[in-house]
């Protein structure tokens, strides 16, 4: 159980003791068990969504900062070998992990078989870059689908709770044979509360999903651009080495 629900139930207990007619808690407690489940589920979905949103926002900001730092170092003209030795010592993320993966492949080819040709090295490096791009992007956009799912499903779930609540309040009208609004209103209010929670969960989820999706796509484009540039640098190196070897 997540903290919000604990808090909710804790507050609920105290609120119910006061027993005011139309308060939020009495509305919750007098609801049918299905409606209660729907409300709790939607509340949990909302908590989860917000957790994802916060984590993703932080992650994206960190990634952006890391990319900026790395690009600064990379284009500063320092030796790539030195850069590789410093970066490979600790876990990397983003562009740096691309660089490390490609350099590792490069070094392996150069050191492992000094006499061997550079045939196929270019293709291998590109493969490695592709794979690490995919890994990075996957890290960035994991859990985003949860947001999309919550955004599209929670209004329906809330609507389900509302329909159920109205159904049961109509049944209680039929049982009590009293149609005055005072009898009907609490049931309908509690039913509508379910839809309200559904919308409360769905709206931020939808907005954040669109925003985060756009940010991730931007990062992916940055990574792909860097990969292309880096592989062209490496291919130039390969050609120079090949020419050098032939001359020697």
């Amino acid at each position: 159980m997540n903290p919000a629900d604990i808090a909710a139930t804790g507050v609920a207990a105290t609120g119910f003791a006061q027993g005011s007619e139309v308060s939020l808690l009495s509305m919750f407690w007098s609801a049918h068990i299905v409606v209660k489940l729907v409300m709790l589920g939607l509340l949990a979905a909302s908590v989860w969504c917000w957790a994802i949103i916060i984590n993703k926002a932080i992650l994206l900001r960190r990634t952006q900062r890391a990319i900026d730092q790395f690009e600064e170092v990379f284009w500063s003209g320092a030796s790539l070998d030195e850069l590789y030795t410093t970066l490979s010592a600790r876990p990397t993320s983003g562009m740096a992990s691309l660089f490390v993966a490609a350099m590792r492949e490069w070094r392996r080819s150069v050191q492992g078989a000094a006499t061997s040709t550079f045939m196929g090295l270019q293709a291998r490096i590109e493969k490695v870059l592709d794979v690490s791009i995919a890994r990075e992007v996957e890290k960035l956009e994991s859990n985003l689908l949860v947001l999309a799912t919550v955004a599209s499903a929670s209004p329906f779930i809330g609507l389900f709770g509302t329909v159920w609540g109205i159904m049961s309040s109509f049944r209680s009208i039929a049982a009590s044979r009293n149609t005055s609004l005072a009898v009907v209103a609490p049931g309908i209010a509690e039913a509508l509360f379910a839809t309200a929670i559904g919308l409360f969960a769905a709206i931020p989820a939808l907005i954040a999903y669109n925003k985060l999706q756009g940010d991730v796509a931007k990062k992916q484009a940055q990574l792909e651009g860097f990969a292309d540039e880096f592989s062209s640098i490496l291919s130039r190196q390969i050609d120079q080495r090949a020419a050098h070897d032939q001359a020697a």
Partner: protein
Amino acid sequence: MSLRDHPGAALSGGGHALLLAAMVFSFAHSSKFDDAQETIPVEMLTDSQFNQIMKGEKTAKLSEKPQQKAQKLAEIAEAKPVVTRDPAKTDVPTPPPRAQPVEDPGRSEEAKAAPTPPERPVDEPAKAQPEPQKAEPAKTEPAAKAEPAKQAAVTPPDAVAPDAEEPKPVAKPKPEPKKVAEAKPEPKKIVAEPKPRPVEPQKKPEPKFKPDELAKLLEEQKPKDKPQEMPAKPKSGEESAEPTPKFDLSAISRLLNKDAPQQKAATGRELQQVASLGSPTASASKMSPSLWAQLDGILQDQYRHCWNFVGLAGQQKYVPQIHVQYAQDGGLVGAPELLNPPADPNLRSLADSALRAVRRCNPLRIPAQYQPFYDQWKGRIVRFDPEDML
């Protein structure tokens, strides 16, 4: 998954808890609605509509009988008496039993003894008016009933005709039983007046003692006295069993009906056909276009004579329009008002001359035929077009 790297769950959980707590407190008090006031539908009437409604005849008779305005004949009032009709048909020789409940028990015995029932139906309609005194003069009559009936047969045709024109109040002082023969025709008049049924008074005198006709007459008139009879009934011993409480469907539906009150045609036992006395300025009909054109011509003709303006500034087309209010005799009411003051100071003299013309023609001669339509021409906008007028 450290809290430092992924603070989302904790943050979001805490945020939701705070939000819930805030909502619990803010929802604790729900504001009550103000007590709704009942709305009453109001129909708007324009002045002229009101006047049309109030239109009346100056010569209408004053009716002493307070009638409810009836726009529609009631169905229920006529449906009731059908049940009690049969006894009158069957025992012809005896006086009609329907008439009895109206009078006091003592009288009804007398009536049975007397061999002359014909005046009974004649008498009854008179009772339709809620006058308590009528029973007393009627009681004195029965002794002399045989002759009065015969005399009544002779007198009514001439007596009815003049009386029909008289206003009803004349019929009222009847209670003094000076001459029974006189008293007789009068009740008939009252029957004849409110209901447009001139046939009955002539029918009645003809048969001296024809019980068949009597029964018919009775049937005809019964429907009308029904409501008055009902309360009187319990008095007579023999009929006490008859007034079973009627199962009135409409009464139930009236009780059940919870619809908002709407205007319905007022129903009554008889249509109200006499025009009420309305206000004298009320106008029922509207002026026809040709009347309008004539009136315009008359006004323009008179204003043309009052208007003299020479310095015509021809370059600009300007037609002063003056709103004038007339009294019923054609005099001015209030000051004439220039509706379109000219921007050009040169034209001001033209406007002033038009105003002067209106003031000079103060009592306009307005033909009498327009008097009924005063409401429609009391406010006019007069155009002083130099090309038309000069």
